């Protein structure tokens, strides 16, 4: 439990963990898909597993669902160890990546499927009523008798959601649920997902490789890489205080400047960059790096200026107009290329800069983060 100080704060605040992973590992032959995962999911939160493909996020989700048994460690749901509990006995439902809707059943029958499995049996009227409510929630009333293949991708997505939430699971697992939708629809569904979660109050666990999706939807994001949990935190914590270069790079865009640490203490460190310039930054990891290190600065935190000749001297190499912002790719002979995102407001004062023009790049001391070199 090294990386989740935030979580400890939460549990101290008295939030009940609905599910936990305790030292969970999963090995497939020679591949260690999940490596000693420790995680506590609070009741009612929206948590995302974020990482590139093969990072173990889907394996983690499948262990919560009961499709995979951990090689070691314990999976808990509602304080019960469920390692050996089959998927059909777990109070957990999943929205599959390609929905996995039953093609031989109607919309109504798909949604009622879970209810029909309950023992003692539910009455037909009860089932109909609950299915009706679920259809209402996903705004598909009137589509009861439709066949799955008569529905659009977005509609199928909602049927899949309704099919899962109608059972009122303790945990709703979502495996890249929006990956198959086009960009516009994805945006809409993201908002719907968030509304839905607030409305029904079920704990959501989402798996995604899309950092934008994870950041915009989740209360907490669990960044994974090579089967391990790299960092857990709120989207803002991950963005502002990444504890490793991996997280800084994966969550949002960042510029990295390599150098040597010359002084550190009190949560700060000074790094001398390759051009001899000393830079101060915050230390987010447990211990300040020693020796080789890198400084991470977000593109929007760098200011370009032609009059204020402090900071790094650069040549504007490329300019991309983005409306509210302008993105510059700038070049320094020693430090290489990096990105600068200038808001329109500052452009009015000092910009815009033309390609080939010389300018000075600088940032506030507090916005830089000093990280291990790799």
């Amino acid at each position: 439990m090294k990386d989740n100080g935030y979580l400890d704060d939460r549990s101290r605040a008295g939030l009940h963990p609905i599910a936990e992973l305790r030292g969970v590992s999963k090995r497939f032959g020679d591949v260690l898909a999940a490596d000693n995962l420790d995680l506590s999911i609070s009741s009612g939160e929206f948590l995302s597993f974020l990482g590139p493909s093969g990072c173990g996020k889907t394996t983690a989700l499948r262990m919560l669902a009961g499709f995979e048994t951990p090689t070691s460690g314990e999976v808990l749901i509602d304080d019960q160890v469920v390692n050996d509990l089959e998927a059909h006995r777990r109070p957990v439902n999943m929205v599959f990546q390609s929905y996995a809707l039953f093609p031989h059943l109607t919309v109504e029958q798909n949604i009622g499927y879970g209810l029909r499995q309950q023992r003692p049996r539910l009455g037909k009227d009860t089932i109909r009523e609950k299915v009706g409510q679920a259809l209402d929630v996903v705004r598909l009333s009137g589509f009861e008798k439709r066949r799955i293949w008569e529905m659009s991708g977005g509609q199928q997505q909602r049927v899949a959601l309704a099919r899962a939430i109608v059972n009122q699971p303790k945990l709703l697992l979502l495996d890249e649920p929006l990956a198959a939708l086009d960009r516009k629809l994805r945006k809409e569904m993201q908002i719907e997902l968030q509304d839905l979660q607030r409305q029904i109050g079920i704990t959501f666990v989402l798996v995604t490789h899309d950092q934008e999706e994870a950041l915009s939807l989740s209360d907490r994001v669990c960044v994974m890489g090579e089967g391990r949990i790299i960092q857990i935190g709120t989207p803002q914590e991950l963005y502002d205080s990444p504890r490793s270069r991996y997280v800084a790079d994966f969550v949002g865009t960042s510029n990295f400047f390599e150098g040597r640490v010359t002084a550190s203490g009190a949560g700060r460190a000074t790094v001398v960059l390759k051009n001899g310039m000393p830079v101060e930054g915050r230390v987010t990891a447990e211990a300040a790096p020693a020796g080789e290190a890198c400084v991470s600065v977000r593109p929007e935190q760098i200011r370009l200026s032609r009059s204020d000749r402090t900071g790094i001297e650069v040549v504007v190499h490329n300019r991309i107009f983005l409306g509210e912002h302008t993105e510059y790719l700038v070049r320094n002979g020693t430090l290489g290329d990096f990105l600068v995102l200038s808001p329109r407001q500052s452009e009015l004062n000092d910009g815009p800069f033309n390609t080939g023009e010389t300018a000075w790049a600088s940032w506030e001391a507090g916005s830089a983060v000093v990280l291990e070199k790799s």
Partner: protein
Amino acid sequence: MTQRARNWLLLTPATAWFLVMLVLPVSVVLIFSFGERGDGGGYVPAFTLEQYANLPARWAAFKNTMVLAPLGTVAAMLIAYPLAYFLAVRTSQKWKTMLLVLVIVPFWTSILIRSYAWIFILGGRGIPALLEMIGIEGVRLIYTPFAVTIGIIYGYLPLMVFPIFVSLDRLDKRLLEASSDLGARPWATFLQVTLPLSIPGVATGCLLVFILLMGEFLIPALLGGGKVFFVGNALVDLFLQSRNWAYGSAVAVTLIVVMLVSVTIYMRLIARLNTQREDVSLM
């Protein structure tokens, strides 16, 4: 050349084949069935229903066919389904191909040789001899309807396994996970997801086996030993032995009609099952 002309040109070989190899012979048989037997055998043109009036004389062959063909089909299906399920759902990709080949291998040997093998297995020195060793005497297997059914199941099993295997293999395995995730026990998942989605394969397999079985004559001839006669055997006998072409044609026409009627009823049933899917909730 216009698109239309090209279409006709492409259809010509199939049409010609269909006319010469199917429509023509069936028409000939139909015409013969209203004729009479010549003195030395063969066919004499006439228009009489005499041959059809004589059909009850061959009732046994029809009865055997109508009982054993559906029975064999159902038995083959019941044996093929678990096998296909095992191959498609339970077997790893590595073994799948090899095991499938093992299912087809018997197909590469002549049905004649394979049926002969069964004559020995079911005959006096085969299973009955083994049963005698443990004290069960007087069991007769060869030349019984049982022997014919065994032969049928054995011979037609691959034909049944394949369509079922394909439908089960194509089945999206995530649907099974989804079903389990929604609380269905393994058996409930089978009844509500696997089985309904593999019905098309089962239907195809049954149709294929049933149609071929209706015309079967080799297996009854070898394993039925002249005691368990199919319509196919009656035809061989009428055309080649007694050279009564007119009567043989009447039997053939009747067989075709019986086959068409049963296949039509079968197709109707399957079609109804498919449209009824809406309220098929097997549980």
